[in-house]
């Protein structure tokens, strides 16, 4: 009885379908638009294939390292309580949302030839570090994505109910047994998704790979797209490369979803987890050292951004403030849109999964598509769509808002979907056996458990939107700017000092938004 499939409500179909349509329009639709304008010029050369190989390789390595360090870091954060833990977890969002160029300058300040690390080496008579090349690309990608990996995996840890740990303690399980019985199944469910997300992020990274890549050896597909689109105006090549990126994305998505096994913890009372394992002295020290190193790795570049930016913060040019307002408005709107879209899409995916498993899995893959989308292709495609009908300049802000929302949809979906799956799985049956209305069920049982992931997802979307240069660069009239665009304009006008100030302002505003949204959901269980 409880397993009998319920008919999908119309709201689910329309809301989820709408989200899906928007996603497809902006990803595949824009590629088709670019393709429609193309006159075939030339196929892919050896340089393009080299770019594809390098792109995949560096993304695999970067994602593997990020996840490999992310797992013990998340475990340390999950089983330790210390003052500042909350702050540390909140600040973990920071590197991920930095605009590429700010992060690169921050990383250079620490790891560069004249950076802090080189200075320490130099004091002992060593050579200055040279991170440029392959190692620089991977270093920067780990810097960006380790925090994301940690937070995604930490979400998984916090989702293991307290009762499981209590039972494990009563049964006298050791740390290793707990790992095997509780943590390993959770990791099987969470890690593939995190790996995929980071892999795809590294595929499309552009500014980073170039600035730290050293030269043509470190050419990514995204650069090839940029060149085809902006330099050679070879639309067909841009469309082909964009399709290759989507192909890479789809293959990886299928692989990881196939590896991932849904976790099946029973649902608990929802109290904060307390841990009885992992109290061995060696383990405590190990966790402490690990957290210290990770914090140092992530925050020294940020601190150098603060040191450089702070003196200029009070003397920022007046044009900065309207662009701050624009950025914040876009960020809030796109965060709300992104979470709404993901909730709608999650509901549809879950609704379908009972009867049409394939369709539902296919939709989940589509939910990742915008990660593999090139902002240049989206921008150009939208331009081709819109230009005959409306003035793209006038619509710059709403367009940016929608595109930013869709670009952050994969993150929001990855955060919200598993949690919704879990709660629907357990409370859905209970609710229907109690004869609850769907809405009542959602309000009483599901929403309280979704608040935390929804808050995290909204915070992440808002912050991502703040830092994104994205399509605004293609559409913005000169009197309309966002904060990252203003920063680039300052840098292009030799105003490096002011640009540093804007960078700091950008980081602060992104973090404030992230914190404000994330606070709603907090990290600790607090559901009553």
């Amino acid at each position, binding site marked *: 009885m409880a397993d009998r499939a319920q008919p999908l409500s119309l709201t689910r179909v329309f809301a989820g379908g709408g989200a899906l349509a928007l996603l497809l329009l902006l990803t595949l639709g824009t590629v088709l638009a670019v393709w429609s*304008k193309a006159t075939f010029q030339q196929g892919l050369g050896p*340089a393009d294939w*080299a770019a594809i190989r390098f792109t995949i390789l560096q993304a695999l390595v970067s994602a593997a390292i990020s996840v490999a360090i992310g797992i013990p870091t998340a475990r340390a954060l999950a089983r330790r309580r210390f003052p500042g833990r909350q702050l540390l977890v909140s600040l973990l969002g920071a590197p991920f949302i930095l605009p590429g*160029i700010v992060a690169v*300058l921050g990383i*250079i*300040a620490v790891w*560069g*030839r*004249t950076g802090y690390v080189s200075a320490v080496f130099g004091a002992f008579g060593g050579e200055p570090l040279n991170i*440029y090349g392959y190692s*620089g690309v991977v270093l920067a990608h780990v810097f960006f994505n380790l925090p994301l990996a940690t937070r995604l995996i930490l979400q998984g840890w916090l989702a293991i109910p307290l009762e499981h740990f209590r039972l494990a303690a009563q049964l006298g399980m050791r740390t290793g047994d707990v790992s095997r019985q509780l943590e390993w199944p959770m990791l099987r469910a969470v890690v593939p998704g995190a790996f995929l997300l980071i892999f795809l992020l590294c595929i499309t990274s*552009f*500014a980073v790979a*170039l*600035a*730290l*890549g*050293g*030269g*043509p*050896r470190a050419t990514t597909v995204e*650069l090839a797209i*940029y*060149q085809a689109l*902006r*330099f*050679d*105006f070879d639309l067909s090549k841009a469309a082909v490369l964009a399709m290759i990126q989507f192909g890479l994305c789809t293959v990886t998505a299928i692989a990881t979803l196939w590896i991932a096994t849904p976790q099946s913890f029973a649902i608990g009372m929802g109290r904060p987890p307390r841990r009885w394992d992992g109290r061995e002295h060696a383990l405590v020290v190990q966790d402490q050292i690990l957290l210290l190193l990770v914090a140092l790795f992530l925050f020294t570049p940020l601190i150098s951004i603060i040191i450089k930016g702070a003196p200029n913060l009070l003397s920022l*040019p007046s*044009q900065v403030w309207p662009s701050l307002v624009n950025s914040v*408005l*876009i960020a809030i*709107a796109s965060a*709300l849109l992104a979470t709404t879209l993901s909730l709608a899409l999650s509901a549809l995916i879950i609704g379908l999964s009972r009867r049409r498993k394939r369709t539902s899995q296919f939709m989940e893959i589509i939910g990742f598509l915008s990660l593999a989308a090139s902002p240049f292709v989206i921008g*150009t495609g939208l331009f*081709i769509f819109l*230009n*005959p009908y409306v*003035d793209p*300049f*006038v*619509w710059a*802000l*709403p367009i940016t*808002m929608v595109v930013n929302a869709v670009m952050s949809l994969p993150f929001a979906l990855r955060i919200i979907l598993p949690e919704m799956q879990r709660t629907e799985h357990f409370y859905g049956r209970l609710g229907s056996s109690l004869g609850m209305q769907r809405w009542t069920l959602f309000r009483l049982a599901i929403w309280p458990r979704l608040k935390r992931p929804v808050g995290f997802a909204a915070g992440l979307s808002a912050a991502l939107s703040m830092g994104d240069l994205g399509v605004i*660069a*293609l559409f913005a*009239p*000169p009197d309309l700017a966002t904060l990252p665009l203003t920063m*680039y*304009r*300052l*840098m*292009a*006008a*030799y*105003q*490096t000092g002011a*640009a540093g100030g804007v960078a700091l302002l950008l980081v602060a505003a992104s973090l404030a938004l992230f914190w404000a949204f994330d606070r709603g959901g907090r990290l600790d269980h607090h559901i009553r």
Partner: protein
Amino acid sequence: MKNLLLATGLTILASAGLAQEKPVLTVYTYDSFVSDWGPGPAVEKAFEQTCNCDLNLVGAGDGAALLSRMQLEGARSEADIVLGLDTNLTERARATGLFAPYSIGAVSLDVPVEWTDDIFLPYDWGYFAFVYDKTRLTDAPTSFTSLIDAPKNLKIVIQDPRSSTPGLGLLLWIKTAYGDEAESIWTGLSPHILTVTKGWSEAYGMFLEGEADMVLSYTTSPAYHLIAEEDDSKAAASFDEGHYMQIEVAAKTASSDQPELADQFLSFMTSSAFQSIIPTTNWMYPAVFPLEGLPKGFETLITPTDSLIVSAKDAEKIKDEALQEWLTALSR
């Protein structure tokens, strides 16, 4: 969100209101031109004083991206003028048929090459050069060969020729100076290249951070530090091979609905009112030296022994070959 829509609505109303009063001349240019620190605001003010029109400067991408933008919009484009292409692009731009010949009175240009183009008109120019900090690098190289022979820890930052105009300039600089030996020059330079960035801003930022000893920029860059920051520590290294030139040009579009006004703007562009704004906002040499001469500080800049440039036609031809050599040499 409501405010956003409201603001958008107001923008539409405002632009509609203006359009009825005065003719609007739309100029597509690069972002740094229209920014508040570039020439844009002063140019707009000066032109609107004389034209009884509304000058609408639009930042539409840098260099090649600007041309791509025009190709994307085609004949539907709102643009009356495109300002900010350089001679490496004019041949491709001409082939699109999107631009029309200018008709303005005789001007005598102070551009170091003979100017015969009937569509594209220069408004400023400069030489590419490696800029360094005199306090950090005392013994700056004087040629590409002496840069190759310099100690291995002398590092330079350059821009990618596939995404940046100066990057493409360096490619043609070496190709013009060394012809068939260009590839071996690149092979020699390779160990000195710290990294290759996407655009000028990233590279210059890294240089100012102290990461690299020299950065590919312009001979006029030190003038910015000298005049705007009163810092005389930056200098451009003078190379024996000569320096490659960048000549920035503007043209009116074939689809313009304001052709007379567009010509009036091009004429204004070569007048003293426009040209006197260029040196200390765009940090380039003006195409027509203003009556009062160049600003104080420009006399300290190096003057190349040879001005190198390939014709617009040749640039299009040798670009691909030079790029292949660059890719091969630096991929090793």
